[in-house]
């Protein structure tokens, strides 16, 4: 079985080291390189590698964000190779094969590759485990500062401060900015936990909203209200949501 591998790292020497280490693994025949996350996404879609060596801190979008925007059926086996130890928990949440710390020891590298190869041969390499089993809590940035989405091949980076509201739509979350909307395969619960709670408030089973984007709140029916955002968008407010808003804004 011939294995295709892809190295995604913004540092040429780091890529060269992995390439050098891979020479000891003849089953991995085809090794390619990318220098940033955008290139990485494109390369994974086009070449469908079996195994990816992925750095986390990279320009534009980081390694974890990269995996987020890939279709699940395209997810390769991933070995993270990074100098940061604070992302380990999140890395295993996306079902990474292994998490190597730079500088990388050859023995440690070989073990990781063996593990990946056996996973690929068993055919369990690119199955994503049920997410949410591993807690996302851990050191590292406390709150999300941006959301990366992909629309028809284009990658958009939405700054946290540009997000006006989020709406749950089945398996997806609709992310609304001033003038745009993006769909992302995530749960609203995820964002409720990962976005700064002093900025965002859950006002309905299906809505998470930026508190200072709300311009007006009007009664809608007996127990329901409607919030009007600064871009004119109207979203539902449930009874509990209204209570939460009253507490937040003290009215």
């Amino acid at each position, binding site marked *: 079985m011939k294995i295709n591998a892809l190295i995604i790292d*913004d*540092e*040429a*020497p*780091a890529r*060269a*080291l992995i390439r*050098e280490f891979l020479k000891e693994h003849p089953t991995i025949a085809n090794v390619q390189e990318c220098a940033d996350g955008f290139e990485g996404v494109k390369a994974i879609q086009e070449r469908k590698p079996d195994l990816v060596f992925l750095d986390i*801190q990279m*320009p*534009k979008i980081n390694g974890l964000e990269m995996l987020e925007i890939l279709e699940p059926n395209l997810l390769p086996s991933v070995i993270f190779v990074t*100098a*940061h130890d604070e992302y380990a928990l999140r890395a295993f949440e996306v079902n990474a094969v292994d998490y190597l*710390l*730079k*500088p*990388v020891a050859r023995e440690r590298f070989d073990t990781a590759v063996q593990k990946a190869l056996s996973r690929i041969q068993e055919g369990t390499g690119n199955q994503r485990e049920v997410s949410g089993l591993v807690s996302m809590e851990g050191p590292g*940035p406390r709150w999300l*500062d*941006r959301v990366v989405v992909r629309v028809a091949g284009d990658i958009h*980076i939405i*700054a*946290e401060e540009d997000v006006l509201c989020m709406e749950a739509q089945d398996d997806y979350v609709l992310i609304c900015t001033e003038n745009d909307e993006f769909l992302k395969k995530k749960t609203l619960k995820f964002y409720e936990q990962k976005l700064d709670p002093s900025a965002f408030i859950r006002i309905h089973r299906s809505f998470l909203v930026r508190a200072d984007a709300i311009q007006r709140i009007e009664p809608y029916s007996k127990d329901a209200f409607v919030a009007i955002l600064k871009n004119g968008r109207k979203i539902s407010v449930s009874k509990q949501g209204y209570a939460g808003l009253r507490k937040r804004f003290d009215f």
Partner: protein
Amino acid sequence: MQNYRFFSPAPGFLVFYMILWASCTLVHYILLGRYGDLGAGFTDLSARLLALDAFISQTSLFLLLLPLWFLVRFRKKGKDFSLAGIVNALVGGGLLIGIWYFVMREGLAGLLYAETGAEGFFRNTLGIRMAFGFLAGLAVYHFFLACRLHREAREAIERQVELESLVQQTELQALKNQLNPHFIYNSLNAISSLTLTDAEKARDMVVKLSDFLRYALKQDAMQLTSLEKEMNAVELYLQIEKVRFGEKLNHRFRLEEHDKNLELPGLILQPLFENAVKHGIQQLPGQSGPSFRVIGNEKETILEVSNHFDPAVGRFKGEGVGLENIRNRLRLHYGNGQLLQVEKRGHEFFARLHIPKPSR
């Protein structure tokens, strides 16, 4: 820890107080022996009786004086000669003397001397008893004052030590935070790679990294370094980054001769260059480099680090910690946290350090 010492005067307080008490008892005994013949007829008083007299008088006095410590301890400074203070002292002193007199009269005259029929001896020696009691009280008062001063001095020293260690901890932490560990790990990883592909370059990078670390670790949190040395470290840093990121990074600085000796806290410019690389140059396609300028006026020297950045990705949080750290260090050195200013103008980011000129 502060609490259990709240009332305790000074180490060895009780020992000194006992010594003072013993000395006064002895003097009391000698005085009685000397003037015991006042008003003849009492010369047959035994030494045992006089010793008992001295013991009872001085013990009662010293027990009565003990609470005086709290007055001394909690008296506010500078209130010594206020009217209220004097009235308090007179009333307190009078009360004390009254109680002491009562104890002596009942104990000595009423019990001790009544048996031998020598009540007159007590009356005759009352003046000298009172005079000596006053002197003893004065001695105790001054002893308490000394304890208070000692206590205050000790507290001042403790506060000073505490403050110094706090400052040192803060500074050490600040300095430690300046040195980005990921930079070190990534550089070591690059070196590890170069040992396989280009041993000469690996050796060169080891030397540069060592020189940089030597400079960084040598920085004494309290001391200043020269701009020339700091810029040498920046140069080393950028050359290491260049090995990691390749020709993308392109820079050229020239330092004027008269700026080289400018004094500034060590490792305070380098993080600004690190930011420029991380949030600017690294995110941009093509070659670019940080720029550096020195602008001087009569009040201060402004060191400006600027870089181009991509507004689409370069405006996220995460650069705050490093800048905050620099501000803290500037505050420690110059007592002013406003000496670092940043500005975003179009596609350019400016960080300006305002180093005050030493006043002469």
